[in-house]
């Protein structure tokens, strides 16, 4: 066990955990940030996606010891007022069904738009294809990313 000081959503937070603890469980069990979801635990579904220094990262396989001074952004910190263009588009298109995978979908899309603010439908599909939505809301996820990109 060791104390890790993490830069999460613009704040310095600390957790006393083992070095191999995935960032996902540090966020959820130790820092009370449960918006980041546990889905598969093996980086296959994307529910746990957060940003580490701006890159979409599967937090379920990312050990806390690797975080260092990197800036971690979770769904709770994506925007101050919950009004990121993607969050607004998700509401406008009414994307969610059960909603469980959506934080990971939004974080994956947010990293894409940061890098490529005007992606084509193909680019959206290539990036989002790694995020599973068991309810099958894929059409609306794609449309919402497109809508958000038109407002950036």
């Amino acid at each position: 066990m060791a104390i890790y000081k993490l830069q999460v959503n613009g704040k310095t937070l600390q957790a006393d955990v083992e070095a191999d603890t995935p960032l996902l469980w540090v966020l959820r069990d130790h820092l009370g940030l449960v918006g980041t979801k546990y889905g598969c635990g093996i980086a296959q579904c994307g529910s746990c996606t957060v940003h580490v220094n701006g890159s979409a990262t599967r937090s379920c396989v990312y050990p806390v010891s690797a975080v260092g001074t990197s800036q971690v952004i979770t769904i709770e910190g994506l925007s101050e007022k919950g009004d990121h263009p993607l969050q607004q588009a998700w509401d406008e298109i009414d994307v969610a069904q059960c909603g469980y995978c959506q934080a990971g979908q939004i974080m994956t899309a947010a990293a894409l738009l940061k890098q490529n603010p005007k992606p084509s439908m193909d680019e959206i599909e290539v990036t989002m294809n790694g995020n599973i939505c068991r309810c099958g809301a894929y059409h609306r996820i794609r449309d919402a990313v497109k809508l958000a990109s038109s407002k950036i």
Partner: protein
Amino acid sequence: MTNKTTNSRRDFLKMTAITGGGLVLGFNWFSAEANAPVVISNSAMAAGNIGFNSYLSIATDGTVTIMSPNPELGQNIITSFPMVVAEELEADWKKVKVLQANLDNKFDRQLTGGSGAVPHSWKLLRNAGATAKFMLIEAAAKVWSVPSSECTAANSFVTHSKTGKKLSYGELAEAASRIPVPSTVKLKDRKDFKLIGKSVRNVENRKIVTGQPLFGLDFYREGMVYAMIQRPEQFGMKLKSFDGSIAKSMPGIIDVVSFKNNVAVVGKSTWQVLKARKMLKIEYEKEFDLESTEDHDKLFLNLMDNGQATVRRKDGDVDTAFKNAAKVIKGEYQCPFISHSPMEPMNFFAHVRPDGVELVGPTQTPARARAEVSQLLKVPEDKITLQLTRLGGGFGRRLKNDFATEAAELSSIIKAPVKLIWSKEDDMTAGTYRPACRYRFEAALDASGNLTGYKLRGVGINSGNPTREHNFPSGAVDNLLIDSVEHKSPITTGAWRAPITNFLAFAEQAFIDEVAQAAGKDPVQFRLDLLAKAKKSPVGDIRYDISRMEGVIKMAAEKSGWGKKKDVSQGFSVYFSHASYVAQVADVIMRNGLPVVKKIYAVSDCGQVVSMNGASHQVMGGIVDGLGHAMYSKLSFRDGAADQNNYNTYRLIKMKEVPEIETHFVDNGIDPTGLGEPALPPTGGAVANAIFKATGKRLRNQPFIEEDVFKTVS
């Protein structure tokens, strides 16, 4: 549609004002005998012994609050229920607030399953809204000393038409609570609906997109511990002995305990528990046969010919019909086990205290969870509370409450509040599953291509009845025999979204296509001819509505341009399940020698649509679910153990694999008949029939991806 509805007097309670003022109208949600509202007082609420179980309240600031009793798993009942109330109430939708109700003894049907919530509650919800509106209008008329017939309600205001005077629902709420509850109220004509049938967004969108703690796995209680269970990895094995000493010595681990076939690791965080669980040393011993998919494949063939079949339906004389047939067509179809695999893994919180039990978590059947915990721990039900959380998907998996009873049993052993978490691997390998089934269809045609005989034998593993013997084409064939054989297995199965029909519909609709082809008839016309025959001279019991089925078939043919497209191969399918009708057409093209599903058209008759986008989401999700599992998903077994245990080996459909989907709804004014499941069953058949047209090859086994048409590149 009836526009008058009667309130049962004996259920009314006359009340005094409530805290903070306003109107609180209670009603018997799902009460069989009376969908009757009551006005509720503080004292009555506190006493807790009155005959209501939910309420609609209007506060003096105009906020309308309605409880939503059903578990929410993405069917969006938390939005569509209040829409129905607000419609009749003439409430300003922006002022409507929805609260998730916890388990309450007085709910009769507080569950999510069977596509039944809206059909069950439709009249009650409308009645509740209309009753409150009536009382608000009466209250305003009294204030102004005018006849209530001169007053109208709209947008959370009552207006006196002659003078233009206006009072808000908030201003009227207190006075309305002193108006007697009417014995009858008039419901709106559907042509005047302002909300129902329109697109209204999910009321929980904001919480979802900002990562608020909504789900069971997000629940946290100060002082709670985390636990995971190691269950036998092979169905048929039982626990013999275990050594948890290494696990127990690991950091953060509080205890290792055993009950039934389970070894549970309890600790201070999920990760510590996950790591320690891998260090358990467990010996299992054989209790039942360890079955493999290979065994099941042989068993299916054997039982198909030699099994002791249970007759499900028999009309006429099939033997003679087949003896005299000009042509006999046979087709067999088989599906594997599949996992429900909702995104949120199974989990539940339990705190067993000396004075009672507290349960919190995601379940489709909260009342059943409580009953099972009551029986297990010998604690009376009234000492058990259950708080519902949003469900990260269900698909039938959370109809079963094994995770809730495990959590309760564990809490009673370790005497601490505990959150039990299943890993994705636990969920995929420990059951329950959609049962594996095999079907044999046989059809007899006369010289003119008329269907004179029809036989279906279903063989299933822990399937219950694997047939739906009264579905189409039963009723349209003079000589028909449907029977089934079930094999009992240690591999646990359960209801999976659209139970049985999720595969049976594919098999049946693919076979009908084969028969139509053999008869030299267009597949759509062939179905319409059968329905016309069923209408004219019905055979035996017919439990589907022939006109509604004809309606979706004709509309799907029209919307999809059936028979008019040159550049795509089209496949047709139609199915009646639960109480709704859905017809689908799939457009398939060939790309690099492989079939690709380009588009699926869906026409649904689910009666009145409540939320248009909610309904469309159910249909699109059902199609993606039906296509994805038909194409890609299977669980196979070796010596009782599942070969696939997570998304790296168990394939789910992804974004790039979904076709365009076009949804249409029949607008016929029938009361709602449900939509959570009915759009799923037809998809596999429409796709397989289109692939046949494109390739000349029949798909008979799921997942399709393992069939030859997807392997050979020509």
